[in-house]
């Protein structure tokens, strides 16, 4: 038996070692459960990047920033209009030099004041290449950006601060842009432009662990990858204090589970209704289901750099394809009316005054199979006799609707092999192929607005060499009108000039508008006054808890 006892001993030691590791981290997590005391329990996704204002370009991180920060302007959750928040006034005489005056009395939740330096230091940090902020390009309109953030890969900055920013006093600073841009003040509600407290620069690692802002909430605990507890900041003096005592955000990897938790009463607010529940959601939740337009448009974009699509006549083929798609049917059957057929290249959330014009695209975006077939033939037929539509297969469940679009095109053109979906494994790979100009066929594209301006829907995507011009569309006429619109001092005129530029897209059809995406959410009987803002994010501070 000696052998056996010794084996026992060896097994025992290894087992002890294993169980020690098991117990080592036994006290992980730390989010409190239970929704008592006026706390909203809401679903969340793990932010992809560190929670710095200029480094957050997706909704999940943006949600938190919008709760803990207030900027110069804030977009009205209902009308999407940019209204002064910290700014007392933003004035200009030439649409290029701006004078920004701040309201007094604003502080960060750690007591540090919100003054001109909070903005200037933050913006200098955000724009500097060394800090590799994903949203640095939002500062590219400010004079001196090329020096702190040269565009070529591997270049080194020749300055560390933006020369266009100039402090006047604690409550006033001046901004000089490198071009005329009349709608620029309205961009300042975007999270990249939020101010930063002194502590961000003195203790950066500590700040990232527990970000400190100047908004209606402060973060009481944050466990990365798991959840975040926000509590009402009692020192907040802004006009929109929190109507509840706090928000507990919980990370879900599967929106089905979040939905189940809502039904089971473990969660109060879900802002991503799973696609397979859309059929039941009305009977499950009744009036506690929200389905509202959001500033997101889906398109099919064309690689205009490819010889297949660069000829003068191929615009007709693209128009024909646009008319071959039965948008109404697809939005009803596949999306259960959570998307609306698109008739222009912007979004209904802009409102008529903001530049949305229903039907601007006209007949070219209306389903008409006979005309579609004609146009494609006149344009010389589909390049190579057939097309594929590329999409990423890993997230977003695009396969269903891409197949439906292809079906629609095949039916209209009377050719079963005209169009077929072309999945690409991962989103990263898909984006690499798009940005490296490796596609010869149309691909899916989506645009979520950064700020509710017609300029944000058009310039980044269709201006020559613009940051998100994946189609590599270039039209002198469009560019000319865009420049005119930006220089226009009267904002109504600027908007109408932008619409003139948009009409150029109807002729060239660099991207086919498909549909506007809605934001959807569901909430428990504990909550009232829940609404979604134009970015499809719940307006947390307005939510009331029973």
């Amino acid at each position: 038996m000696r052998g056996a006892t010794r084996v026992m001993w060896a097994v025992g030691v290894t087992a002890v070692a294993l169980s020690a590791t098991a117990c080592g981290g036994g006290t992980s997590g730390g989010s409190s459960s239970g929704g008592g005391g006026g706390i909203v329990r809401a679903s969340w996704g793990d932010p992809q990047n560190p929670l710095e204002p200029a480094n957050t370009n997706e909704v999940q991180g943006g949600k938190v920033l919008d709760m803990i920060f207030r900027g110069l302007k804030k977009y009205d959750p209902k009308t999407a209009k940019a209204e002064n928040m910290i700014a007392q006034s933003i004035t200009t005489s030439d649409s290029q030099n701006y004078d920004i005056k701040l309201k007094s009395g604003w502080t960060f939740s750690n007591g540090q004041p919100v003054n001109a330096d909070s903005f200037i230091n933050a913006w200098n940090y955000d724009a500097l290449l060394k800090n590799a902020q994903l949203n640095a390009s939002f500062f590219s309109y400010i004079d001196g950006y090329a020096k702190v953030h040269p565009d070529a890969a591997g270049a080194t900055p020749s300055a560390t601060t933006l020369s266009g920013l100039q402090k006047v006093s604690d409550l006033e600073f001046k901004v000089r842009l490198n071009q005329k841009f009349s709608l620029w003040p309205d961009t300042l509600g975007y999270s990249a432009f939020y101010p930063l407290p002194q502590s961000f620069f003195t203790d950066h690692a500590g700040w990232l662990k527990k970000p400190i802002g100047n908004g209606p909430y402060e973060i009481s605990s944050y466990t990365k990858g798991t959840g975040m507890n926000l509590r009402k900041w009692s020192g907040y003096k802004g006009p929109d204090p929190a109507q509840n005592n706090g928000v507990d955000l919980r990370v879900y990897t599967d929106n089905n589970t979040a939905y189940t938790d809502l039904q089971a009463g473990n969660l109060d607010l879900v802002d991503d209704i799973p696609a397979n529940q859309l059929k039941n959601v009305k009977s499950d939740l009744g009036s506690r289901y929200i389905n509202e337009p959001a500033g997101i448009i889906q398109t099919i974009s064309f690689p205009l750099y490819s010889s297949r699509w660069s000829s003068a006549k191929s615009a007709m083929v693209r128009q024909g394809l646009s008319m071959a798609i039965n948008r109404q049917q697809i939005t009803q059957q596949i999306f259960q009316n959570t998307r609306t057929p698109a008739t222009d290249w912007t979004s209904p959330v802009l409102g008529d005054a903001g530049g949305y014009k229903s039907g601007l695209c006209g007949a070219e975006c209306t389903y008409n199979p006979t005309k579609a077939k004609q146009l494609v033939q006149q344009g010389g037929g589909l390049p190579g006799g057939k097309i594929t539509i590329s999409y990423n297969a890993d997230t977003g469940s695009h396969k269903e609707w891409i197949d439906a679009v292809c079906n629609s095109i095949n039916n209209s053109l009377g050719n079963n092999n005209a169009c077929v979906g072309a999945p690409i494994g991962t989103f990263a790979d898909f984006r690499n192929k798009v940005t490296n100009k490796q596609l010869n066929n149309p691909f899916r594209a989506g645009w979520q607005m950064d700020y509710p301006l017609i300029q944000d829907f058009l310039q980044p995507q269709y201006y020559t060499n613009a940051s998100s011009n994946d189609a590599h569309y270039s039209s002198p006429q469009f560019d000319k009108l865009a420049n005119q619109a930006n220089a226009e001092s009267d904002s109504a005129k600027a908007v109408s000039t932008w619409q003139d530029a948009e009409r150029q897209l109807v002729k060239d059809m660099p991207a086919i508008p498909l549909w506007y995406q809605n934001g959807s959410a569901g909430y428990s009987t504990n909550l009232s006054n829940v609404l979604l803002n134009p970015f499809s994010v719940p307006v947390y501070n307005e939510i009331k808890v029973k």
Partner: protein
Amino acid sequence: MGRYVIRRLLQMIPVFIGSTFLIFFMVYALGDPVSALFGDRAPDPATAAQIRHDLYLDHSLGAQYLHYMKNIFTGDFGTAFSGESVIDLMKHAFPVTIRLTIVAILFEIVIGIAFGVITGMKRGKPVDTGVLLLTLVVISVPTFVTGYVLQYIFGVQLKWTASSVSPSAPFNELILPGLVLALVSLAYVTRLTRTSIAENTRADYVRTAVAKGLPRRRVITRHLLRNSLIPVVTFIGTDIGALMGGAIVTERIFNIHGVGYNLYQGILRNNSPTVVGFVTVLVLVFLVANLLVDLLYAVLDPRIRYA
């Protein structure tokens, strides 16, 4: 005995290096992760280059692998894109998944072996047929179906348990997920035990024990079961590794922030440090579990000796 363990431990080194190498290359083959960080927006070349430089992605693949391995030996598993070090992610994730695995293994051992013994002793009786049929059903239904169904019944309708697991994931909340995770393996354990028991009831030593007049309970536990457990232990041992790495579906359904969740997130975001780090640790777990199984053989069957 000691030499055997040392030899086995030394064998782990090439396996470890080989597997990390393969995983590293496979994750790398998924493509450049940087442009995905920018969402639907095209990255500006300068920022992308700066990020690649910060993440050591601007070197050749071989150099990256050496750099990564060098860091691993100093205890640095790299940093996820969200800015958190992979070591911290592991500190949160592994205890949760280990607890889940313990619950699952306990279910396998207690229910699986008990069913196996009962059916093995009563071959051909209604109990046997009933349990066999049940295992067949369990094996053929995919985990995500049983997961969602049990979650809906017990979490939403009956409200016996929470429908998802809280971040701290204590044992009592892991009972249902553990059961879901264990179900398929549990069915296999039942079948393995049954066959093994059925075979050994006719063995000489069992007949001898009965002839000696030993009580029936002692015959079953000491003579019959102990000798029948070798294939079952092998299965459970290898299952530990499979359960820890393969809990992706269960962890998603019950929103458990363990290893499977981190792997899923890492793969989705092309985050090579997270994926390679977690899989590396899983490889180690697998190797250690296999060693334990081999050592257990000697405990169960005195005829097996290691030199």
